[in-house]
């Protein structure tokens, strides 16, 4: 009896399996086609284009490694890489620490949680263009609200979006204002920390600060890692805020026709994606843009692997974990 089960699948079962396979294929078909058309093909094509000179009108012309060797001689590219690295370091640290801080405060509130959580989260839903203009107005010199406020203490507000030294900090401020999504994620993780762990720590005589340091932080560390990876990706992609801050700061009348505002002031907001866009879609040097895109791909790929590894670790732990 048991032998027949193992020997050969009954005919009905074979049909069921075929039906199952067909169902999987049917459900996945649009996604597979879409992945090939909008990711796989363009990824390969990007690498191919990166070895050519292509202006969208004349056929691509093979130029070998020219685009890549040119990178080392392009001062603007070096500027763009420096700017993006600045954001990767400063924005990642600032955003993770800020979101953790705000979430920790909200987690300790006993009344008004809903209201304050909503106020902190809502800005993250605003269009990035709008969020940038909001800060551009609030932080404007000569009579902006922040300038007025600092004036009460006898301090002059910096020229946020027209001083090369302050443009990146200004953009970072915008990014912190819209970091509510990360706050909510961290807040949920903090509220999920088992209460017994706090009680045990309290019995050991740990005060609130030590409980936060020794219980909360280690427990939510996987979520903090997610926050760091997520912030790095965000910093690598930083485009909208940089373009809008540059165009508003320079007072460029036509945001789509001119290039003079890109990177304003003094290329301090020229991030890697902004420069890629400029080369590819303003100067139509598609080959050079594709070479930059290849570099960006390699870097984001490395960052993504960190995240996938972490998820792998979690899912294996899940399967073996007693609580799963």
């Amino acid at each position: 009896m048991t032998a027949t089960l193992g020997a050969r699948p009954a005919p009905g079962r074979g049909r069921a399996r075929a039906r199952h396979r067909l169902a999987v294929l049917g459900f996945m078909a649009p996604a597979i086609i879409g992945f090939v058309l909008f990711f796989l093909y363009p990824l390969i094509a990007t690498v191919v284009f990166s070895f050519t000179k292509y202006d969208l009108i004349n056929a691509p012309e093979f130029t070998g490694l020219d685009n890549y060797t040119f990178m080392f001689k392009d001062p603007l590219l070096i500027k763009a890489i420096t700017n993006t690295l600045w954001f990767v370091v400063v924005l990642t640290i600032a955003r993770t620490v800020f979101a953790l801080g705000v979430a920790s405060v909200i987690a300790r509130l006993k009344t008004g949680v809903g209201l304050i959580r909503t106020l902190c989260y809502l800005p993250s839903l605003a269009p990035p263009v709008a969020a940038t203009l909001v800060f551009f107005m609030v932080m404007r010199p000569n009579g902006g609200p922040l300038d007025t406020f600092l004036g009460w203490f006898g301090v002059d507000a910096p020229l946020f979006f027209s001083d090369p030294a302050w443009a990146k900090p200004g953009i970072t401020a915008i990014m912190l204002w819209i970091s509510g999504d990360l706050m909510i994620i961290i807040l949920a993780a903090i509220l999920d920390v088992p209460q017994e762990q706090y009680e045990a720590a309290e019995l050991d005589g740990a005060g609130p600060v030590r409980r936060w340091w020794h219980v909360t932080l280690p427990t939510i560390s996987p979520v903090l890692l997610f926050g760091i990876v997520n912030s790095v990706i965000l910093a690598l992609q930083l485009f909208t805020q940089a373009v809008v801050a540059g165009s508003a700061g320079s007072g460029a009348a036509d945001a789509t026709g001119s290039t003079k505002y890109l990177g304003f002031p003094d290329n301090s907001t020229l991030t890697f994606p902004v420069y890629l866009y400029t080369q590819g879609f303003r100067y139509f040097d598609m080959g050079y843009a594709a070479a930059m895109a290849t570099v960006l791909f390699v870097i984001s790929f490395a960052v993504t692997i960190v995240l996938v590894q972490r998820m792998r670790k979690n899912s294996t732990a899940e399967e073996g974990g007693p609580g799963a």
Partner: protein
Amino acid sequence: MTATLTKPPVDVPAEPEQPRRKRSTGSFLNWVATHAIGLALGLMFATPVVFVFLTAVMSDNQAFTADLWPREWHWENFVEVFDKAPLFQYLVNSLTYSLLATLGMLISSIPAAYALAKLKWRGRNVAFILVIGAMMLPPQVVAVPLYDTWSSLGLTGSLVPLIAPYFLFDAFSIFLLRQFMLTIPQSYVDAARVDGCSEFQALVRIIVPMAKPGIAATALFCFLFTWNDYFGPLLYTGEVKDQWTLSLALATFKGMHIVQWNSSMAVTFLTMIPAVVLFVFAQKSFVKGITFTGVKG
């Protein structure tokens, strides 16, 4: 720790429960301090928008000054900006992009997420990793060949290159929907199969009704992402003014009306309204969805 990660995130409780403690002056002062900081944080996040609103209703001359409070309330500023730029056209474009993309996403992503969450097949894990990879990929990486293709099809300068991909593949939505569907017990799916349901019937009759909150959250995120999108519209419709979305137009509006703080702030304020309205009506979905992207991410 792992248990925390596998648990479906609970609605964030309104009040974290704390063991009852004796009331002492110390804990009272602690309560006051924490709540003062909390209130200050809330105000800090809200004030920029308050200033935007107050500036939007000022007169042309006053918006130029350092005044923080409007002397007269010019509500008509919100109406007059529609004469200064074809905002209504941009609004229609934005809605076309967001609504069609969301519709396409629902058609293409729900079945894919179901196959990734509830069906067993070879290559499923690899497929899921590819979805994550696509989700993390900066849009600028694939922009050159995609623009090249759309341009040779003569479709640049329209909303088609923005909308069409959603009818096939949207990595973030597939990811989020899969995470939601994982929390539906497998026994429901198995029971449906025992009852003779096909996979398609199981999806439509069992999974979709049970995953409604997740589907709602995913649709909201998709709508807002496209509504807020700037890079896509700039790339494909930047040269064709009557195809601009609100986000794209807003960036230009500031340039054209640089001196008129009240008008540009009125438009800025208007573009933020949909997000607030959606949030007010679907707060739970938002919080749940956001929690899912991180905790289970």
